[in-house]
Structures are given as C-alpha cells and as structure tokens.
C-alpha cells in the first residue's frame, strides 16, 4: 500500500495554484488537489487514483485558513482544519451545529489534519459537513483562472463523491449562514462505531416566534442517498405555525419514509436505514425546537454579536 509515482507541486499562492492547475488541465494532465489528505491519502495508498501531478494546497494555508464574521454569515477558509471549528468560540455561538457535529467527524488525529474544504469537496453523502452545508444553505466559493463563483450547496453536491467543481477549480471558502435569532439546531446520527461514517444522519434547524411556535424549519438527511437530502419542505410544511407535540413531529417526519430510498450495504440494509432516518429526523427536529425555545427565552437585544470580531 504505497502511493503510485506522481509529480509533487506545492504552489505558494492562490493565484499560482489556479494558473498552474489551468495549465495542467489544458495540457491534459491528471491533477489531484491535496488538502488535509484524510480521504485522498488512503486512496493514493491503495492506488485507487494515479494522478500525474499532486497539487498540495497546504502552501496556501496562510491564505485559506480563517473563520471570519461577515454580517449574517461566517466565512471559513477552505484549509481551516476540523479541530479549529470544534473549538472556535465564534462557531460555537453563531453556527453551533458545526461545533456539535465536529466531535462526530472521524477521530482526533483525523480532525487535526482534515480540512473543511477537503471534506466538502470529497462529498461523501454520509459525512457531517456536507449534510450541514445543505441544511444551512452554505455557499461554496469556487475559483479558477476563469473567475470566481459562489455555488449554493444544493448545486454543489452532484452525486456520490462528485461535486460541481470543474477540474481547474478550487474550493476556497465556505460561507455559512449564522443561526437566525430564536433558532435552534441539532444533529443526530447513528454509526456502528464512534467516528465511523453514519449509517444515517439527520440535521435540523428550527426558528420559533415569541410563543414558541415554529415559524421556519429546515431538515436534511445524510447517508440515505447519493448526496445529502433536503426534506425541509415536506416535513416543515406540516409543522409551521404550531408548538408541536411529539406526536405531530412524529407524523411530520413520517413523510420521510416515502422520500428516501437508501442503498443497502454490508452494515445496514435499505429498510433499516430508512427507519433510522425517520427516527433520527424526529429526534433532531425535536431537539432543535427545544433549543429554539430556549434561545427565544434568553433572547437579547440585537447588536450583541458585533463584538465577536470583524474581519481582522
């Protein structure tokens, strides 16, 4: 299990990387972009991929490692490593579901090295960050010599391990919407072992009014289809306007049963994954709603967030 031979290139700036990548693509070379390497390196070691050139983005670390508040969003550099999200106070306050999900991602050593951009560009439908990106409507900043564009999550994830990234493009930044006021977020998953990819996962965000009635909600599922799946409309159309009893949440999330057709594999069959998705969805919605009610209770005047840092 040793990587096949390749040329190794470590550009030192974004501009250099984009130009070089464009050149290689134009000349017909197979280039692979290496970030944290926690998914690509195993594939190289197993010789599942044979790139002509390995483009190591870690030289761009100083440029692409950051967590910035930008109005209603957090801008996170693509090379920001998982452990940085796990412990960042701004993340904990403004996109708490990321801090909640991070300990579920792989293991300690994986989070030391793995990057946010790498995880999203790898696009495993069972992984946590793609699920959260879809749930929250995160936008992906994608750059090439042809220009820069922002791709919404629902367009970014195309299918299993496949994104909308063109071969000359690099994911440079992820724009995460900050949690709205009077809102709660929750993620629920079941994996065979701690740190494994989930057999199924559900993530929810719920916003309530002064009375605790739901005014908006989002729900996304992981591990049950080729990309994370947004089922917000189907579930929350029944829940908006009410302070839901458990039974109502249960009935609303039952809709999922007909919406998903998960794959079977050695660890779980389709039927079990479907049932898991329904259960986890109900738990996530309930937990998010409870968090929203709590947030509503201790809601403070606007503007409090501004002390959390402008762009440095």
């Amino acid at each position, binding site marked *: 299990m*040793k990587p*096949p031979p390749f040329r190794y290139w470590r550009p030192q700036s974004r501009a250099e990387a984009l130009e070089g990548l464009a050149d290689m693509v134009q000349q017909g070379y197979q280039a692979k972009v290496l970030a944290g390497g926690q998914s690509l390196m195993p594939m190289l070691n197993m010789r599942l991929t044979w790139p002509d050139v390995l483009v190591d983005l870690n030289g761009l670390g100083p440029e692409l490692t950051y967590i910035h508040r930008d109005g209603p969003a957090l801008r996170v550099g693509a090379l920001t490593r998982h452990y940085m999200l796990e412990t960042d106070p701004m993340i904990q306050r403004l996109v708490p579901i990321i801090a909640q999900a991070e300990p579920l991602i792989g293991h300690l050593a994986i989070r030391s090295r793995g990057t946010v951009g790498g995880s999203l560009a790898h696009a495993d439908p069972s992984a946590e960050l793609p699920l959260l990106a879809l749930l929250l409507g995160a936008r992906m900043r994608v750059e090439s010599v042809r220009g820069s564009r922002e791709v919404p999550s629902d367009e970014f994830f195309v299918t299993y391990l496949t994104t909308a990234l063109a071969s000359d493009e690099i994911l440079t930044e992820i724009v995460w919407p900050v949690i709205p006021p009077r809102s709660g977020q929750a993620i629920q998953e079941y994996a065979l072992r701690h740190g494994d990819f989930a057999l199924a996962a559900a993530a929810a965000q719920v916003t309530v009014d002064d009375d605790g009635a739901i005014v908006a909600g989002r729900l996304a599922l992981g591990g049950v289809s080729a990309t994370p799946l947004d089922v917000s409309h189907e579930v929350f159309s029944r829940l908006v306007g009410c302070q839901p009893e458990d039974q109502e949440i249960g009935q609303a999330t039952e809709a999922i049963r007909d919406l998903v057709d998960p794959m079977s594999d050695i660890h779980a069959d389709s039927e079990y994954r479907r049932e898991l998705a329904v259960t986890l969805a109900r738990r996530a919605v*309930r937990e998010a709603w409870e968090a929203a009610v709590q947030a509503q209770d201790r809601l403070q005047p606007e503007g409090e967030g501004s002390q959390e840092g402008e762009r440095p």
Partner: protein
Amino acid sequence: MRRLEDPPLLRGESRFVADLNAPGQVEAVVVRSVHAHARLQKIETAEAEKVPGVIGVWTSADLPKDLGPVPVRLSPAPTLLAALQYPLARQVVRYVGEPVAVVVAENRYRAEDAAAKVMVSYEPLRPLMSVGESLDAGPLFSALSSNVVYHRQQRKGGPLPDAATSRRRLSLTFRVQRHTAVPLETRGLLAVPEGERLTVYGATKVVHFNHRVLAEMLHMDPAHLRLVEVAVGGGFGVRGEFYPEDYLIPYLARLLGRPVRWVEDRLEHFHATNHSREQQHEVTVTYDDEGRLWSLEDDIWVDNGAYVRTHGVTVPELTQAMLPGPYAWPALDTRLHVVLTNKTPIGTYRGPGRFEGTFVRERLIDAVAASLHLDPLVVRQRNLIPPHAFPYSHGTSALGEEVVFDSGRYEAALTRIAQLMQQDTIDERKRVARARGRLRGLGFAFFVEKSGLGPFEEVRLVLDEEGMLTVYSGLAALGQGTVTTLVTLVQQQVPLPAERIRVIYGDTDLVPIGYGSFASRGTVMGGNAAYVAARVLRQRILDEAAAFLEASADDVVLDAGGAHVAGATHSLVNYQVLARYARANGRPLETREQFRSHAMTYPYGVHGVELDVDPETGAWEWVRYGLVYDVGRAVNRELVCDQLIGGVAQGIGGAAFEELAYDADGQLVTASLVDYALPGAPDVPDVEVILTEEAPSSRNPLGIKGAGEGGVVGAAPAIANALADAVGAPPEAFTHLPLTAAEVRRWIRPLPQDGVQDLSTADEK
C-alpha cells in the same frame, strides 16, 4: 507486578520484523489473484521487469519442480491432503488473494509499481461462495469426489428421542459469520542468507515446527537454517502458522543471495491471512417441562474456504468436541461437515470452535428457558455436571485426544455471576430503564474452555558464573506476558532479582526443541516445565551451597543475593561463587527438564451482560459486563485478567462488529479496516472480572489451567441473551451473528403510538 516485557515497547525500542534492516536488503511484494475461481492462462512479467529498481518476478513455473504444498500441522486425515495449498498457484486459483507471482525490488514502492504491471490472464470459473453452492457443484480439486473434504459423527447415549417420544423439542438454525483475528501488526518476514546458512526473522507461535517444514521444503540441512522470533504484534491463532510466503521469501533470499524482506500490508492481510469462524449449525434439543436436557443433535456445516491449511480440521473438530459444554447431556449426536468454497482458507482464531459452539449452546439454553418461561440460570443449574462427576467425558475427542474434563465447580461459578450481576434486582432496574425509554436486558453464557495441549514442553536453566540465570524455553511470545510468567515461576524457586534472569525463546539455534504457544498451552506446558526445571535447579543450588558452607542442605536458604545457612545471613555465598564452585567441581548449575502431558486441562466460567436497548434504533449501550473465570491456579492473577479482558473485547467484535463478507462474485467486500469494524475504545465496556482458583487441575504439578481464550468465547451468547431478554424475543431470535442494531430492531414488538412519543421525549434528557 509490572511486566518485564514493557520498557522497550514503551520506549519504541523493541524490534518488530518490519523494523529490521539488513544490509543490502530488498523487498518482496506478492501478486495475488483478483478472481475467486479461475484457470490461470498466462502470466506476463516483461513489463514489470522493466520497472526501475526491480530485481525479478517469479511465478510457479520458476519454482523448483519438486516443490510440494504446505503440509498440515494438526489433525491430519487422508482426504485433507488433496486440498493443500502450493506456495504459488498452479493452473487454477481458488480464492481472491491467492498468490500467483512474487516481485522483488529495491523497495516496497518500486515493488508495488512492478506488481501492478504483472499481467495475469484468467479464464474465470464459477465461484462457489457458500456451503450450499459447493454441495451442488463439482469438486474444486480433481482428486476429491466432492467438496465435503471431511466428515465425522460423534455420538453418546442411547437412541435419541424422536418427535413422538419427546415432550419438548426445539429445532433452530444458528449461523456464525466469517471473521478473524486481525492482529494490529500484519505478518512479515526477513530472510538473510550467509553462505550456506539462512536466518529467517519473523517466525512465531510454532517456530520449531515451521523450522522443520521450511528445511524440508528448501531441501536444506536443518542445522543451516535458523528461525528467529522478534517482537510480535499479536497473533491470536492466525499469526505464525506456515503460509505460502513462509516458503517464498526464504527461497528468494537463497536464490538471490541477499536479504529479502516482505511485510504484508493490511489489504493483503485480509485476503491472505487465515479467516475463521464461519459455521452453520442445525440443532435439535429435547428436554422436559422442568428444563432438564435430554439430547442434543447438531449438523455442523463449516465453510473451510479454498484450501486445507496447517491446522487441518482443528477448528471443526474442536467445535464438535467442545459443543456439549458444562451440561450432563444424556444423549448426543453431532455430525460435522467440512466444505470447501472459493474463499480465503480458515484456521484457528482465539477460542477456535468454542466461540462458535458456545454461542450455539448458550443461546439454545436461553431459548429452552424462554419456551418454558423459566429463568435461564435455573435451566443451566439443573443441567450442570456436578462436582463429584469429574473427571467427566462427553465421549467426544479432538486434537487426537479424548475430551475429559479434569475438574470443575460449575454451580459455584453460576452463583457468583448471578451475585456479581445482581440478578435478584434486575426487574427493578428494568422498570427504571423503561421509564427512561430504554429496554434493559440481562444475559449470561456459561463456557468450558480447553487449555494446555501436549505432548511436552522443555525448559533448560543455566546459572552462570556472572550470576545470571538463563531460561531457555520452547514457547513463543505474542504479547501474553510469557517472559514475565516464566521468570515468576523460576523466581518462586530460585529467588534471583528479575534483572538477573533472562529468557531465551523463539530461536532455533539457541533452543533446540519446542512446541510453541497456541491452544492456551504456554503457561500450562511451558510454565510447568519451568517449574519442574526450577525445582531441580533449586535443589542443585542448595546441594552446592551445603557443600560450600559445610552445612546440611536442609538448613540452607536462598535469597536474592545467594545462599546462606538459616539464621546466619553473614554466611551468605553469592550465586556467582556458587556457580564457579559447582563448575570447578564438574557439576555446572544447569538443568534441562520436560513437562509431558497427554490430557488437556479445562477451565470454565460465565459471562454476564447487562445492556440498554434503544427501542427505536435497536442500538444498545453497555450497562455492565461481568466475567467469572476459574483458572485452577493462577501464576500471575493480573496477567490472567489482562488476557480475559482483552479476550472479551475480541469476543464483542465477533458478536457485534466484525464480518468478512463476500459478494456473489467472490470479492471480499470488507477488506479494509474501514469496512471490517474492529471495536474501538468507545465501543467496549469495562469488564469486571472475578477470578477464582476453586478447581485446580489434577493434570500438572502447579494445578494451573490456561487463560488465553475464556474471555472471547462467551461474549456472543451473553450479549444475544441480554438482547433477547431486553426485547422479550422468542427462542428463534438472535441465532445469527453478528448481532446488529437492525437485527435487534426487527425483534422489538411495536409499541403503542403514545409509547413511541414517550421514549422520544426521554431520549433528549
């Protein structure tokens, strides 16, 4: 007591085989079949040979014409010889991963580059991927008439009760999934030729047997061949057996005249190293209304994989022989069928045959209890072999000897586990759990183990003139604390400080004979040999000291510094002086003793599991894990507990996590540590062990029994029984391993609608 093995391991200074570097060493990579069953048409090596740094590529056509297959070590039976494996496949490949060629290059990177360029043309044949398919198809080997390579029936007692005469009768099918040991260190070898001589590093477990086999296969004078064991990263049965590479690497080293190293990588480990466990049991049990067992019938179907490896039919025979367990069955009839398929061959894995048989029997007992609405511990207690009945035979045999249990106080163990697990108050705990939305279950599994396989083990002790005591042992050390155990036993007779005792093992130049470490025999056989030798040496030292001190030997005492007359420490003569004195008188202080045994010892115990099931997902959490174990006599209680606790984690892996699964084309779909789920630290519970010494073995002077396998064998049925208890499952539930959350969920009866809601509420608290 701290283990003597540990300091260099903790510093990262121990040398495992992949840590060795011989000057001029080159690296081998094995090219393996990608087909489960195919005719080999052509192997083109020209492109591979052009890769820079490549030294050569070899196929079976390049090996000596008179090369035979790898022979069997245990349980030989004539039909087995038709299905042995050659080091490189000839004409036909029979499992994915079977070696077809070897590449040698200056390093592993280059060797893998070349291996990718070895072009093998296959004519695919139909793969036989289950016992059923193999029974319906023609034989995989032309010398065999069918794929059933071995069959054996064992019976005891009169005619079995039939449906008409038995009041109670239960027939169930059990399945144990294919899984295996997966030591953290993969296999590896370094073969270093020097003139006529050849030294092979990386042997373990059965070093001396492999020495003989390799010398024969290489047509070498055994005196010129040296096998050396270095640090070993776990074995658990699979490591140290003679595999195809154990011939190929030494052969290539001799051919090339330079050191050749081979380190198995993890992906090839899953294909190349022995699998284990895959069995199906079709069981019928009869019993009365009080739960008294009458008879046990079992058709045991063993999926052997493609070849018969060194163990022969050890696993199947042990399954059959040990199946009856601790119960006094009036009648038994078991039929063993060993079937060849197109999978990696099986061999022993810690608790071979007992993991499988204990699961079948102990889950069956709970099924019997459930059918009668009786407490499963009461059913067990009513059927245990009573203390006065030992030695007790079920009339079965394995490993060439009749299984005769030496001693046991089974009911006491049962009482202890019930107390440890607080069985009397479980109903209250169930109510509390239920209020939190969890289904609590408590389950038990009794097991009888075997240990200490003969025929003998030898120890040589030498006390030299530097005052160093050297212990030469025929055992191998795979992490169990063998060195610590041997030193402890020697010190009990000759009380030198541990730093003045060294243990030499696993080196065929320095230790002429040995049987090795397997079948929980190390402490029983090697330990008793050390004990016997140390007693002899002690007496020799006392005699020399008596002569030297002009005292009676009865008055001499030994301590860490030497010998002196009792009550007169000023008379101390140190061991250096004594050794010199003895040698000068032509009586050097050394001895060589054997311990022989033709009957194994039989430890036993009970696993207890308490757990909470999530009624919606079927996932469960550990509440408690208890284990009662009787080891006869313990040499070092801590080391025994270490073995038991580690074994439980492996048992849990086999019960609920691990599976070697194949697809219909014969590809192994769980061939990485991503898909083959070894339990991690958060996945296993703390284990509370009660170690007893109530039933010493009558078959060795120390009264000891082995400890290596009792932790692993009872885990699956204890968990299955706890799950069944939690969800109130019928007898036929949880008869297939692994026990998955999906399977648990299947047996949960639908709760009323508002019940679901209550549970969900409770979950978030």
